[in-house]
């Protein structure tokens, strides 16, 4: 264990997602050794993001204004909505340059064992967006794990009476990996996704 302030920093860093105790220690000592101006800039960026960044009132994506860049862009197809769990998924899909519609960020996935049900996600907001009948296709791009699949199942059933085209990404295969190295369950999911897209 270290002196109070250093240990404090390690503890705080350790609360961040994906940061284990060893990484927290590594980052803390990096900060200690760094130029004070660099550290100030980092601290400022942390504070600024909390002050300035909001969530888009339409899609729930992070935004610098009331509405995000994508919702404000008139070139984006208003008939297609891609549903994702987090804002970082929007970034990942944007990088593919394949998708020209709009997004809806749920803010997570249904996980009953963690006490997270449909009411804890931005599902009511999604239903409100679908109400005017302008949207014709809903792409369910929740994560290719159990919670993501369950969330997609829930949403597909919920919007069924609306008669939309509902599709699911054939995701889950390791990016850049050979098919023969993918495990059977993941591979099965990808094929299932492909069939769904054909519907």
């Amino acid at each position, binding site marked *: 264990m270290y002196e109070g302030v250093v240990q404090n920093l390690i503890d705080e860093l350790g609360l961040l997602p994906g940061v284990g105790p060893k990484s927290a220690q590594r980052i803390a000592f990096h900060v200690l050794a760094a130029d004070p101006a660099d550290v100030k800039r980092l601290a400022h960026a942390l504070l600024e993001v909390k002050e300035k960044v909001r969530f888009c009132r339409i899609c729930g994506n992070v935004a610098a204004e009331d509405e995000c860049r994508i919702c404000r862009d008139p070139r984006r197809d208003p008939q297609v909505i891609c549903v994702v769990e987090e804002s970082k998924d929007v970034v990942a899909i944007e990088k593919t340059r394949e998708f020209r519609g709009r997004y809806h960020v749920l803010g997570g996935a249904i996980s009953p*064992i963690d006490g997270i049900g449909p009411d804890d996600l931005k599902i009511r907001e999604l239903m409100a967006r679908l109400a005017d009948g302008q949207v014709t296709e809903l792409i369910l791009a929740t994560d290719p794990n159990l919670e993501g699949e*369950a969330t997609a199942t829930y949403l597909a059933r919920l919007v069924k009476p609306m008669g939309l085209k509902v599709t699911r990404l054939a995701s889950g295969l*390791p990016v850049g990996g050979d098919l023969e*190295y*993918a495990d059977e369950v*993941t591979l099965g999911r990808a094929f299932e996704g492909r069939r769904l897209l054909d519907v």
Partner: protein
Amino acid sequence: MSLYRDEGVVLRTQKLGEADRIITILTRRTGKVRGVAKGVRRTMSRFGARLEPFSHVDLQLHAGRSLDVITQVETLRPYGEALVTDYPRYTAGTAMLETADRLIMGEKEPALRQFLLMLGGLRTLAEGTHEPRLVLDAFFLRSLAVAGYAPALSGCARCGAEAVRAFAIASGGVVCGACRPAGAAVPAAETIALMIALLRGDWAAADASESRHRTECSGLVAAYLQWHLEQGIRSLRHVEREWAGRDPVGRDPAGRDPIGWEWPERRASHPEEAARTR
């Protein structure tokens, strides 16, 4: 036994550090085990999706000082694949996993009967032959019985009198008019009959029950379960009643009990299972 092999059902997964997960597994021989799956969250992990909740797996572990380390996994049945496409079945299954995790408190204490119940319960849910909430209530009642908390259903829990009136959770089941504590629920006789059918595996009777008695049964069973656990089952709040399945009555002409419950009278009928417990 520094390296050991077992089969089990994944009850829950929790993130650990950068790329690992702690996997809680209910195993056939070892009981409840918590093992680390290293690197499981990386896309290229050799474990892939095999260690997700509901998976019935064959696995090899290395016994560690605090947590065991999972070294090999093979899928026997990925029950999650079947459950996740049907929301009511998925939520019922989640409540089963959470309940087993909570009822079995000690780690590495053999819990063969709970393991067999879990396997039978998941198989039944995945087959879709009975309403998920009935399967869940049967699982709850039988898990409680295995844990030693079977509710009295056919005679007053206090005095043994045959004519019963109410269901008193704190008294341990049905009670007669004289023993009935203030505020105890007075369910329909059909509801008590349904609970008996679910506990014993009389699916013909359970499937033929009316919706209102199923709802009443679920309420009583959930209250009884949570009273014994002294804490709520979080996923229970999200279990859905709605079921889009086909009419299940008569789907199983052999009258087989799919959860594979062995009612105490028949308990000695599986000598090899009894031998495995030791």
